[in-house]
């Protein structure tokens, strides 16, 4: 019962905060709403007993990515010029499309519930850092190497694109 109420609380807050991000005029407000969503998602990982992923979620998203976002928003001084978004037919069409996709996804997910492959109860150690690390450094070692390269590429690329004078 506790787990269920926790899920409902975290889920509701995350959806409300995501909607807040969607409709906020000021980018800084948007970013703050998104941070709230991300924290709730980290909480959801804890209810799934995926502790390692939950910790990484807080470290990477709240600690690094969102700080970067806020930094750039303030660097460009965007808060000073909030713009009204105007609605046109293209966006209305997009919205209808969006609602259709959403309802389809919810329908599919809800109906395929009983068709899921036999689900075991949550393995207690599946979310532990040891299990993840062992798999990461054996079965997925090549992917892991490649992610290292990807982060190197991103570092070099961010410099190339954003440095004032690149040479």
């Amino acid at each position: 019962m506790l787990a269920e109420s926790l899920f409902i609380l975290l889920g509701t807050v995350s959806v409300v905060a995501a909607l807040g991000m969607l409709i906020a005029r000021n980018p800084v407000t948007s970013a703050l709403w998104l941070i709230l969503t991300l924290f709730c998602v980290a909480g959801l990982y804890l209810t799934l007993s995926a502790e390692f992923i939950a910790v990484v979620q807080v470290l990477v998203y709240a600690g690094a990515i969102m700080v970067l976002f806020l930094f750039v928003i303030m660097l460009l001084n965007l808060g000073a010029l909030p713009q009204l978004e105007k609605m046109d037919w293209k966006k209305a069409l997009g919205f209808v499309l969006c609602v259709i996709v959403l309802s389809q996804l919810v329908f599919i997910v809800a109906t395929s519930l009983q068709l899921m492959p036999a689900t075991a109860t949550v393995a207690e150690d599946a979310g532990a850092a040891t299990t993840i690390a062992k798999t990461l450094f054996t079965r997925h070692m090549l992917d892991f190497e490649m992610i290292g390269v990807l982060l190197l590429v991103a570092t070099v690329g961010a410099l190339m694109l954003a440095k004032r004078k690149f040479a």
Partner: protein
Amino acid sequence: MEIALSWYLGLSAVLFAIGVAGVLFRSNLIIILMSVELMLNAVNITLVALSQYMGEVSGQILVFFVMSVAAAEAAIGLAIVIAIFRNKLTVDVNNINLFKW
């Protein structure tokens, strides 16, 4: 752990759709980028939930990689936004319309 798997998947679908809506509706580049991050997060919930309910760890490994990719995408995306801003003094997609077919 008595929460049904479908709750997690449904929540993930809702968050994903909000992210898609953000990309489609907002014209501020930075908010579009944040919406993409939200989409990736929504998928992560699905992956972790499926992985934990099936007792199979590779879903969580993918989540780990998705987070790294999200960080890399944020860095590159914001760098492009800065470069655009230097060029055109705007971060509004509606003002970025050089190409016409």
